[in-house]
């Protein structure tokens, strides 16, 4: 099964470097940067391109500084609908 493709945007000026998102990320895609923001906090950056857009980092972020994007896979839903239709037909034939 192909992984979902996603991306996040971190508002670095809002970040306080609490590292809760690093702990929450199932893909280990986040790290502490070596630079500080205007307030003097070591902010968090995305270093790996494995993001699936699972929202875990955004949910635990106390500052509300993460925006999450996920590629909406339309083909999958269409396939699923087709499968359901065929299964319905099969049942009616058996009856």
């Amino acid at each position, binding site marked *: 099964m192909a992984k979902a*493709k*996603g*991306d996040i*945007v971190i508002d670095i000026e*809002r970040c*306080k*470097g*609490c*590292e*809760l998102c690093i*702990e*929450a990320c199932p893909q280990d895609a986040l790290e502490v940067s070596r630079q500080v923001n205007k307030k003097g*906090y070591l902010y968090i950056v995305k270093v790996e*391109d494995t993001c699936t*857009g699972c*929202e*875990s980092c*955004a*949910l*635990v*972020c*106390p*500052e*509300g*500084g*993460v*925006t*999450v*994007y*996920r*590629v*909406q896979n339309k083909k999958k839903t269409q396939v699923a609908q087709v499968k359901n239709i065929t299964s319905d037909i099969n049942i009616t034939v058996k009856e």
Partner: protein
Amino acid sequence: MNEKTMLDDDHYENVIREESVCTSENLVYERPETLLDTPLHYCPGCGHGVVHRIIAEVVDELGIQEETIGVAPVGCAVFAYNYLNIDMSEAAHGRASAVATGIKRVLPEKYVFSYQGDGDLAAIGTGETIHTCNRGENLLIIFINNGIYGMTGGQMAPTTLPGMKSTTSPFGRDVKSMGAPLKITDLVAQLPGTYYVTRQSVHKPANVRKTKKAILKGFQFQKENKGTCFVEVVSNCPSNWKMTPLESNKFLEDQMLPFYPLGDLKNPERKEK
């Protein structure tokens, strides 16, 4: 390491793909509108910010920004009115549920919630809290329990765990002389006026989702005039526990949660199903 990947052709492809991912069609999560742009004054890793955001999300989802009135406590969340773009009122220490009662009785069609910490709700405002719940006022009480007085510098609160060190219990809380921790949520669950009583936390993504559901239920029950809804959120206080945010979450999981188990203490809707 970055220089190497910058030279790689694949990297440029990835960059292009990333840019295409960040479109309004693919947007699945963003900062709620009800949460203002003001930077939060809370310490790094504090659970208050998460709960503020959850409230803003719920208000946005229900579309009740114009009809919601919040009552802020005295404590760390005293400036909650700076962060939430809804009508807010400030109450004297511990009296948030009494002020909320007044607001709800004058404006019964509005959604009223009080947002209180453990020193506010469980120590100074115990009487107000218990009587508000006993009268069954149609309120949502959100109770943030971090087991310490955060704003004043980490003094012992009624919810401080046995043996837990604070500035006023430097050798750990002694149950014999200082009393056992007060489980106020269990206490109000016994009262007939409360309709929905639950205890949640915000230390993991799954728990954040559950807390959001609980607060959403609280607002929905308030619309149906069911009675007092009480949502306790077990939270952390990295600064006054003298820990990093990650350590504080571990402490919360290992020490706080066995004493304050998560789950619904009173939920009539579940029994019917």
